[in-house]
């Protein structure tokens, strides 16, 4: 057995130089796998901790809800914002409800919120997780290290809102391809999809397409970060070569993917139309949606890339025409921020403390007189006038009721027209019956019947109504002392409310 050269702990290095890479290469791989393993721990932890919740929650599969939540957040991430917290909870509910259909909805919502909050880890100040693992250093000393990671993070959005984003760790855990290159993994996923479709194995193809979409989102996220960074760094960025090259590369990539995904789309459409099996047809249709979404995301990425150029030029102009000053001062970033960030926090803290002590200005200390204090404490609190000035009471004038027909008349007319769906009636018969009830009623019935000649089908469809009054002219003239025209056939049509509802949800 070999013994390590020295087991004494090395004194902590206080020099400014970054610490040398620790651990031999073999241990590095182990550390990476340990970290990957740690990313799944919060999910297992959910199922372990559900027993501690007040109430009977063992019926819920928390890890499943959590993975589903990460899926939802990842798919709802766009360039500017992330996913909305409430929206994710709402979309989680069907799955939670399916796990325990007999439980109340409030409990389902509580479970969904609990899972989401635990994935953010609301309880800790960092809102993240920490795992401890050990490695052997180059000198053979065993060191325990903290690995900090997040699964879902909260990011600021426009208008002060808070949005959710999945971190790279979470996407890697989700996709299961740990520590792989984004671009190559995407290409691999797409090639796999093409092969699967050509062999007609659509079930696997859907899985591959969904993975391709996660990769697409991840790639977009990487580029978004890069773009955001370059927008701030315009002065020091190599605008002659590096940036245009980067943008060209990204545009080429988008064009390439776009061509590729359109080809796939054509193939799947063909597969969808030619498929005999209903199940195959449905799966192919789902695939079409997924690939369409991929294309949409690529288009979005492309428009961002095109906007980058003018932005660079505007910044370039702004600085090129600024008059140079004769003397220079302290470079706050280059000489202070950049050097202290890599320092150990013990040392960096001294510098930031010094800056804080001298950079905050002054505060005039408040001195309290007992007399003032008594007055202050005895003064009743001032009403906050956040409601604004009092609104004057509006002076309302009662408008005369000039309706031609009363509510009762309308009710009796509707009663008359409430026909069985298989027994339509002639307008003449309806008018005669109405005349027996009320002298004015025939006018209302005739009016409603004429309206029914052009029934509001669109409205009924949108509102999901089950019955619709209609009137048809079959050429018979109306023989009536008060009215002329056609003797309409008035009837009630039954509408397929369930089918319409399904149609509506598909089309949206």
């Amino acid at each position, binding site marked *: 057995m070999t013994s390590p050269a020295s087991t004494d702990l090395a004194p902590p290095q206080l020099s400014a130089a970054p610490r040398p890479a620790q651990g031999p290469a073999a241990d590095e791989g182990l550390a990476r796998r340990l970290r990957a393993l740690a990313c799944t721990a919060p999910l297992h932890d959910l199922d372990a901790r559900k027993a501690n919740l007040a109430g009977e929650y063992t019926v819920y599969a928390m890890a499943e809800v959590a993975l589903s939540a990460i899926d939802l957040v990842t798919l709802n991430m766009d360039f500017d914002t992330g996913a909305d917290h409430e929206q994710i909870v709402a979309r989680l509910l069907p799955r939670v409800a399916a796990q325990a259909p007999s439980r109340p909805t409030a409990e389902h919502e509580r479970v969904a919120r609990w899972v989401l909050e635990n994935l953010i880890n609301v309880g800790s100040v960092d809102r993240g997780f920490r795992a401890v693992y050990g490695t052997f250093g180059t000198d053979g000393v065993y060191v325990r290290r903290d690995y900090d990671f997040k699964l879902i993070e909260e990011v600021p959005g426009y208008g002060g809102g808070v949005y959710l984003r999945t971190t790279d760790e979470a996407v890697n855990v989700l996709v299961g391809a740990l520590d792989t290159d984004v671009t190559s993994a995407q290409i691999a996923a797409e090639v796999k999809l093409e092969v699967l479709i050509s062999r007609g194995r659509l079930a696997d193809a859907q899985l591959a397409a969904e993975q391709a979409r996660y990769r697409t989102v991840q790639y977009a996220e990487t580029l978004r970060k890069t773009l955001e960074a370059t927008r701030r760094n315009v002065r020091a960025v190599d605008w002659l070569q590096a940036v245009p090259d980067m943008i060209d590369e990204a545009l080429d990539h988008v064009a390439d993917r776009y061509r590729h995904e359109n080809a796939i789309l054509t193939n799947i459409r063909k597969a969808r139309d030619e498929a005999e099996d209903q199940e195959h047809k449905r799966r192919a249709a789902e695939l079409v949606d997924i690939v369409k979404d991929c294309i949409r995301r690529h288009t979005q990425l492309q428009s961002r890339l095109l906007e980058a150029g003018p932005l660079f030029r505007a910044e370039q102009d702004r600085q090129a025409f600024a008059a140079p000053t004769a003397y220079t001062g302290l470079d*706050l970033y280059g000489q202070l921020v950049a050097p202290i*960030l890599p320092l150990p926090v013990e040392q960096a803290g001294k510098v930031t403390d010094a800056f804080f002590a001298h*950079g905050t*200005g002054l505060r005039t200390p408040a001195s309290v007189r007992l007399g003032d204090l008594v007055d202050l404490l005895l003064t009743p609190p001032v009403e906050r006038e956040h409601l604004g000035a009092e609104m004057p009471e509006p002076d309302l004038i009662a408008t005369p009721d000039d309706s031609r027909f009363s509510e009762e008349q309308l009710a009796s007319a509707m009663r008359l027209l409430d026909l069985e769906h298989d027994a339509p009636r002639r307008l003449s018969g309806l008018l005669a019956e109405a005349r027996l009830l009320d002298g004015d009623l025939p006018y209302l019935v005739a009016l409603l019947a004429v309206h029914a000649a052009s029934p509001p089908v669109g409205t009924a469809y949108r509102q999901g109504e089950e019955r619709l009054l209609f009137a048809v002219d079959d050429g018979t003239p109306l023989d009536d002392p008060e009215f002329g025209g056609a003797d309409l056939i008035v009837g009630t049509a039954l509408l397929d409310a369930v089918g319409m509802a399904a149609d509506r949800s598909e089309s949206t």
Partner: protein
Amino acid sequence: MSEIHAEYADGWSEQEPPHPQQGPAPASSSAVTPADAADAARLVSFGLQPKLLPARDAEYTELLRRYREDPVFARLADAVATGLGLVVLEVSPRAGMAVTAGEDSVFAVRMGDYARRASPDSADRFLHGLAHLAVAAMAFPRPEDLADDAYIGRLTVNGVDAFVRQACLRLEQRADEQGENTDPASDAPGLEAGWRIYARRSATGATKDARRLAGSTTGIVGKAAAFLTDSGFLQRTGDEGGGSYRTTARYQLQVRDMAGSAAMAELLELGVVPVSDGTATLVPPPEGDDLELAADAGLPFHA
């Protein structure tokens, strides 16, 4: 202190032609009376109200004029300030009587009063200090900006946060490239690199009352910006980007003459000597390692 004062007093007299009016200056040049002391103290008291603009107050303007024209009165006002534990940065129409708290002065701001969480927890203390430094770096991104008296910096809270996060991201990427394991040892949290502490802290967080989460980085930067606004160093201009601000002349003086040099001295004490020829962050870096430092030199983002 007196050197600074002399330098700026000269600069000031160039900016504005001598005032035609002759106030009580000739009388006080011979002997100092209690009334002069009261006036000098009055001027210092104006200086203690950092948000008060000289142009808005006739008495303040008059006392500033007297400070400039009457050397005896000027020395008296300086003495009053010094006696109170104040440092005079500049006396001019644009900045007014710009005074700041000396070390151990009753006017000094202490970290413990500033943020209750900060004193026991060194991570939070560091983050609060870093936030102030980052706000200054974002407000004056180039060395010339800090030197140019006419420069007005602009910043947003989210912009400052993104700027520091980006710098942290670069360091993380560099560490990854070099195969470094940056996870700190469990029993020595003080050895964790500063960027990791910032990167680890969440940028924002949902709270019950829709306010900013105080412990998040935007919460910490937002607190710094709000505090500097109360100090008369920043002026709030809008709500976009988590709150947008512009700098005042006082802030430039404070950072240039006090905070920057104090922090630099501390950094040199630690054996870190950041060398800059003042133009390094302006030109495209030739290649290699310089890119990392220069590329992050930040710029207020005007979108």
